[in-house]
């Protein structure tokens, strides 16, 4: 087990290295001189030169990258151009919001779609089964923002059951009221996918010999489905949940914009619009690294759930 985790960790290193190079290059892909963009188009040449020097842009690219890497390893992401605050402070302030949104979104998605998939498989061609097909077909063609706006319109504007936006701690009732619509929105794309995947995975395991054996032993049907069939159908479900968790982080960008959540996604979009490069670099790096680490975690969980994986 230990060697499996070590191997996976080693494989993640070059990917993380590549991610850091790509994020570093963001500033250098900018058309024109980034220092000029930062200083403003009318800035006198000596100011532009100062900005160049302060960003290290007068150095060769590999030295700039080396310095960049040395800084981010120490947790120094530079300062925001707009507010002059350290970028890392902004990231740490906004990340919990995005993480909360993604976690509540994932949990909500699992709670709804896994039982839906199980029922759809168990009662094949029933109303639940057909409904799940319709949900999947429409779900794949509706952009996240449409789901968010429709929910917002129905539950916040027409019915006035839930707030239009905002964010509060989940320790309060208001916190849960605030997060409800965003969490449903952010999980909407995954929900359809997960329900279909649970269904097909369950269909396969319900036909296996061990399910027939369990039934032949006279085991209670619920126990057969949950303990024997579902447990074996779990593997692809875990993979998708893990992979989608990362996509929820990027879906959070849209959701946070709609529901005015002070998360990292909204920070990123605002930073792009105001050309605040250090924040853009920091937020992209942070989200991408979180995604890579989540995938790593999924692989490890995978190996715990299915011992066969470890020996491949």
């Amino acid at each position: 087990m230990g060697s499996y985790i070590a191997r996976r960790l080693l494989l993640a290193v070059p990917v993380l290295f590549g991610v850091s190079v790509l994020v570093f290059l963001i500033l250098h892909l900018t058309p024109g001189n980034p220092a000029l963009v930062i200083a403003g188009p009318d800035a006198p040449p000596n100011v532009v030169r100062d900005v160049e020097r302060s960003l290290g842009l007068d150095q060769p690219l590999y030295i700039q990258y080396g310095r960049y890497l040395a800084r981010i390893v120490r947790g120094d992401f530079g300062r925001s151009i707009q507010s002059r605050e350290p970028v890392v402070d902004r990231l740490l302030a906004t990340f919990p919001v995005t993480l909360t949104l993604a976690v509540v979104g994932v949990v909500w998605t699992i709670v709804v779609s896994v039982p839906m998939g199980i029922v759809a498989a168990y009662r094949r061609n029933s109303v639940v089964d057909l409904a799940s097909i319709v949900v999947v077909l429409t779900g794949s063609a509706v952009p996240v923002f449409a789901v968010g706006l429709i929910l917002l319109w129905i539950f916040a504007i027409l019915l006035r059951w839930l707030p239009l936006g905002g964010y509060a701690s989940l320790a309060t009732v208001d916190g849960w009221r605030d997060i409800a619509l965003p969490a449903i929105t952010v999980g909407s794309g995954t929900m359809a996918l997960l329900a279909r995947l649970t269904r097909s995975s369950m269909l396969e395991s319900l036909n296996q010999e061990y399910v027939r054996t369990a039934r032949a032993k006279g085991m209670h049907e619920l126990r057969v489905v949950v303990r024997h069939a579902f447990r074996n159908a779990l593997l692809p479900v875990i993979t998708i949940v893990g992979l989608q968790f990362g996509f929820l982080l990027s879906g959070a960008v849209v959701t946070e914009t709609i529901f005015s959540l002070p998360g990292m996604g909204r920070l990123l979009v605002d930073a792009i619009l105001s050309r605040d490069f250090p924040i853009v670099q920091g937020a992209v790096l942070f989200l991408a690294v979180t995604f890579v680490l989540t995938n790593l975690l999924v692989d490890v969980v995978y190996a715990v759930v299915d011992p066969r994986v470890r020996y491949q």
Partner: protein
Amino acid sequence: MPARTRTPGGPTLARRLWRSWQARIGGTIVVGLVLIVLLAPTLAPYDPLHPSVLDRFQGPSRAHWFGTDDLGRDILSRIVYGSRVSLRIGVIAVGIAFAAGVSLGLLAGFYRRLDNPIMRTIDVLLAFPGLLLAIAILGALGPSLTNAMIAVGITTVPSFVRITRSAVLRVRSQEYVEASRALGVRDGRILIRHVLPNISPEIIVTTTLSMANTILAASVLSFLGLGAQPPTPEWGAMVFVAKNYLGLAPHTALFPILAIFVTVLGFNFLGDGLRDALDPRLYQR
């Protein structure tokens, strides 16, 4: 066990395509979309950019079928012209992804020594979840419609590389490739004349499905204010403006959302139908 070969005289592609209900619906939608794109000036009842302050936020009526927006512009006309923008986004973004992805996939699949460097680079691109890479690229290039197309195009490259590479790996050891090699045919010619035609089904399906995904992704970028900028009649950008008036005039958001939905569904259905029709294993009996 029946042989898994293509029967000569089997149904033509068009007929096989027509057998699938998904392809019928998808094909009809896509053809309809192309017609709307071509006939936009005839079909649109008003100028999509012309504001009319007195007609702001009108609901759907006989004069304005889809109502009017915050500046009194006719929403139907904007959606009709918006089809041009959306299709252009799809074609250009997929064009970028196709050109880069298929070439890299061919090289990675055909030349062992290029496989590792190309695929590891693709792994780095895949380390960014979904939209984040496109957003990051827009962070560098700055928000605009053209940059959004480039960003979405680059984001789509990995799927073309992977599909092409695995298809090349499949045909690389086939006899006709070996035979061409033995005859001394140059690699470039083998790739273009022999490998490419034999992997085209996979690429056609990926292209169609990517049209759906790129149009969807670009609409999301425009919705965030990072893609098409007002007053461009792009569907996502229309919703971006409409979201501020959701209580007052929900129809200003509803119709562009429906346009995106129908278009994306059309390409998705067509892609799925093509996949079924192009897969010889599914129709031989």
